[in-house]
């Protein structure tokens, strides 16, 4: 499975500056593992030491927050779009 992962501005400097990258994996956890293997500097920003999601990181598969779809075990299918969004007080457009 391959998914397109959208990288938020705040994480780009530590991940080579790309706005999005293509990553292999069949679950959100696998995707994040592959991502952090390539960019070890962001590991602590994405995952806690027990492998759960950082409290200020929201991960969406397509439009859905994975915390309500099984967390890091949420399945990913080919062509899915994964968005990493920091938890902030409000949004804009």
């Amino acid at each position: 499975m391959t998914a397109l992962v959208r990288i938020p501005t705040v994480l780009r400097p530590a991940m080579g500056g790309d706005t999005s990258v293509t990553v292999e994996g069949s679950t959100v956890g696998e995707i994040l593992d592959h991502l952090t293997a390539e960019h070890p500097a962001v590991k602590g920003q994405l995952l806690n030491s027990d492998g759960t999601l950082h409290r200020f990181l929201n991960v969406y598969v397509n439009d859905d927050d994975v915390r309500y779809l099984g967390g890091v075990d949420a399945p990913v299918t080919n062509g899915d779009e994964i968005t990493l969004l920091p938890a902030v007080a409000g949004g804009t457009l």
Partner: protein
Amino acid sequence: MTRFASVLDLIGQTPIIDVSALSPKPNVTILAKLEGRNPAGSVKDRVALSLIDAAERDGVLIPGKPDQVLIEPSSGNTGIALAMVCRLRGYHLKVVLPSNVSPERRQLLFAWGAEIIDSPGAEGSNGAVRLAQSLSADNPEWTFLYQYANPANPEAHYRHTGPEILTDVPEITHFVAGLGTSGTLMGVGRYLREHRPDVQIWAVEPPSGEMVDGLRNLDDGYIPPIFLDNHGAQLLDRRVVVRPRESIEWTRRFTEVGLFVGLSSGAIMAGAVKCANTIADEDSATIVTIVPDDGWKYLSTGAWSDNIDDVVERAKSIIYF
């Protein structure tokens, strides 16, 4: 009843309109609760009144005592609603406002006599919260109601918005609302959970303003204390994110049913449509959604009149949730 003693008596009891003409599925009814009908123009009237009433009840604010000052961070609607209530109750309000909110919001705050303290636009709502916290710490004589953490915020929705919805729509199957302070979702959500445990509670995450999120790293993130206090993660069934373009598209589509609504209403409707699309053809569902405010405060964005690509680009730097 058509005669009222105070404008504050006009808060709440908002109408619910059937907007199923916008539903993607014939078996899914969508109903919108029009919070723009509140006197200061948004759902935040309920919150402002609840915050002030609670502070007076607790003795934090003393009606009639001169020179009482309040400070509050707001992207607009809470500030505007508080300004109206404070004007009537005789308190001086300082609103910490990101510099990049729509100009109409500034005008409304001015109209009701609030003082505006600008926080850096690039830091978004996070920056406004931080600045209000620091000003409050430096001026302990000011009252800091802190809508993001004050239980009187969700309480307004638990005591009023939730019961109004269940009275008007006993057949409700889904509730969809936007996630700002999380007050609406926590209050209505908790009320519905207690009275209709089967109702699905969906949160719509506003499009994240990457240009204005004010983050140096992820640890600068922020989760409203009331979301944590109400066990928000357990209360919600789904949380969906919407994109800038679909928010504008649905804001425009509301006019097909005669409604002129604010941009967050378009975002929430986009979420309600995603919710409707999960319903199987053989099932039926009744989704209740919230229209937080009307469109007037957003005319300067050109949301209805200009080329949609330009509107989306322009609106990316405006805070509206």
